[in-house]
């Protein structure tokens, strides 16, 4: 594979960019693979890449019913952070953050990971108690997260209104400086290119219609719109559609799928330096490299596989954004969209074995899946290769809903992912 570099770009510039090759191959499926991964999002493609790179398993196909990166990978607001509360969450998100830090170099693909800082605003005593609990837990776990006074928060994010007369005045903020954003499409494309280069087949426009199992109950392959594809192992990582895929193997999961909406403003010159989240008023916002304000809205209340949602969800978020940043009332919304997230009862992901032999699942990332991409992919590859979870993902197993060992970040902190 041709290495990407400034020199390569310069060389191509001189000859009309005629020399670039396809970033990934578009092969016809083989009869059988060692591993079939369902879902070519960041998690699935990344898992394939790490299977090839770290476990030497290259006879792998990632199958995708649409276009790769077209699910939640390409629809989210790209926030990256690891300052979660519980050990299980801190472990996996910090593992992910460390991989983010070197991902462009590892993939030879600029994913534009930008550690511009993620700041969570505290508006009342309860917020402060909760955020300080995070700050302390993070520090003792070895994760950066610091408490800022309102003045320090304003210095870090000048557009912030910290006047005491605001409806929800700001009494401090928690800041993770290593948190930030990345370019979502580049993550999918970078993994696809790097995986394809190592021999992985990325098969787009190939819809899974069934999961075939042998007499021992173990999986033998998938029925797809391109015919039967044999598989010794299957990993399912299909974000909002995990319930549907897993039902094909008669596995029921504690998931519900709801549309999560987001929007961008028209592009403007740099005005907003970091990522700001406010749980009390339900808003998060950053500015993209193109200059658009990227704003995450809430989920609709009902199960839905439609990638649209109600206008009231958007307006509710904008209420809060404009209350925090009254200057933005004259800014215009340019595009709104939705993605389908699959959510667990404790808002933490499930990654692990299933009751079906050789069928592995990676689901329930809810609204927090993007930031987990490299970490989740890396550990999912380990799970598929070894048949048992890596210790960093050992807490994310399915049995916790039976035993009650929940990882309830939401209940503990009421912090939106």
């Amino acid at each position: 594979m041709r290495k990407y570099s400034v020199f390569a770009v310069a060389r191509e510039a001189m000859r009309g960019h005629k020399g670039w090759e396809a970033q990934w191959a578009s092969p016809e499926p083989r009869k059988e693979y060692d591993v079939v991964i369902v879902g070519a999002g960041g998690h699935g493609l990344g898992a394939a890449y790490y299977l090839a790179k770290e476990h030497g398993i290259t006879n792998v196909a990632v199958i995708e019913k649409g276009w790769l990166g077209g699910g939640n990978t390409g629809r989210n607001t790209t926030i990256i952070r690891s300052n979660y509360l519980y050990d299980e969450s801190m472990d996996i998100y910090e593992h992910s953050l460390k991989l983010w830090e070197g991902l462009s170099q590892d993939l030879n693909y600029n994913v534009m990971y930008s550690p511009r800082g993620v700041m969570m605003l505290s508006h009342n005593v309860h917020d402060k108690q909760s955020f300080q609990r995070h700050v302390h837990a993070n520090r003792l776990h070895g994760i950066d997260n610091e408490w800022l006074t309102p003045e320090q928060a304003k210095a870090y994010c000048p557009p912030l209104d910290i006047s005491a007369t605001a409806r929800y005045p700001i009494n401090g903020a928690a800041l993770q400086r290593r948190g930030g954003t990345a370019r979502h499409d580049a993550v999918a494309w970078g993994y696809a290119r790097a995986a394809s280069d190592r021999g992985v087949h990325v098969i787009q426009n190939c819809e899974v219609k069934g999961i075939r199992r042998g007499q021992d109950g173990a999986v033998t392959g998938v029925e797809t719109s391109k015919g039967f594809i044999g598989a010794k192992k299957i990993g399912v990582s299909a974000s909002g559609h995990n319930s549907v895929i897993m039902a094909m193997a008669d596995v029921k999961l504690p998931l519900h799928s709801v549309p999560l909406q987001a929007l961008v403003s028209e592009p403007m010159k740099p005005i907003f330096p970091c990522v700001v989240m406010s749980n009390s008023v339900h808003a998060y916002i950053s500015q993209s490299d193109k200059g658009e304000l990227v704003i995450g809205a809430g989920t609709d209340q009902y199960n839905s596989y439609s990638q649209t949602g109600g206008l009231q969800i958007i307006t509710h978020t904008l209420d809060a954004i404009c209350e925090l940043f009254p200057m933005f009332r004259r800014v215009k919304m340019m595009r709104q969209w939705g993605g389908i997230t699959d959510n667990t009862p404790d808002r933490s992901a499930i990654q692990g074995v299933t009751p079906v032999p050789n069928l592995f699942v990676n689901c329930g990332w809810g609204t927090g899946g993007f930031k987990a991409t490299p970490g989740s992919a890396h550990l999912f590859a380990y799970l598929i290769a070894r048949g048992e979870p890596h210790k960093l993902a050992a807490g994310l197993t399915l049995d916790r809903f039976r035993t009650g060992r929940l990882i309830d970040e939401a209940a503990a902190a009421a912090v939106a992912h």
Partner: protein
Amino acid sequence: MLLIYCPYCEEERSELEFRHGGDAHIARPANIADITDEAFQDYFFLRDNPKGLIFERWRHIHGCGRFFNAARDTVSDRFFASYKAGEPKPDLPGVAPASEKTVETYEATEGNAQ
């Protein structure tokens, strides 16, 4: 924003007046104290999350206050029926139950990009 028919108010009202209540027809076991951990997990956590026809609960919380059930398509968000709590699932002629064997085509949810 949905327009939801409330079977008690006998008219369609804005979603703003309603709160979603999860899956319908999941009865709390009468002997709940005695069921197994697995049965409790089934009752409290595991859900079909169907793509297509779903039977779900709504509460007209800012209206008549009543819980009721509805049948809706989770792909088109179209309602097929609303009925009072306690009534059985209605017959829905012509409506296929959601099934993993008949996954919607990609275009149905995703516009027309291929």
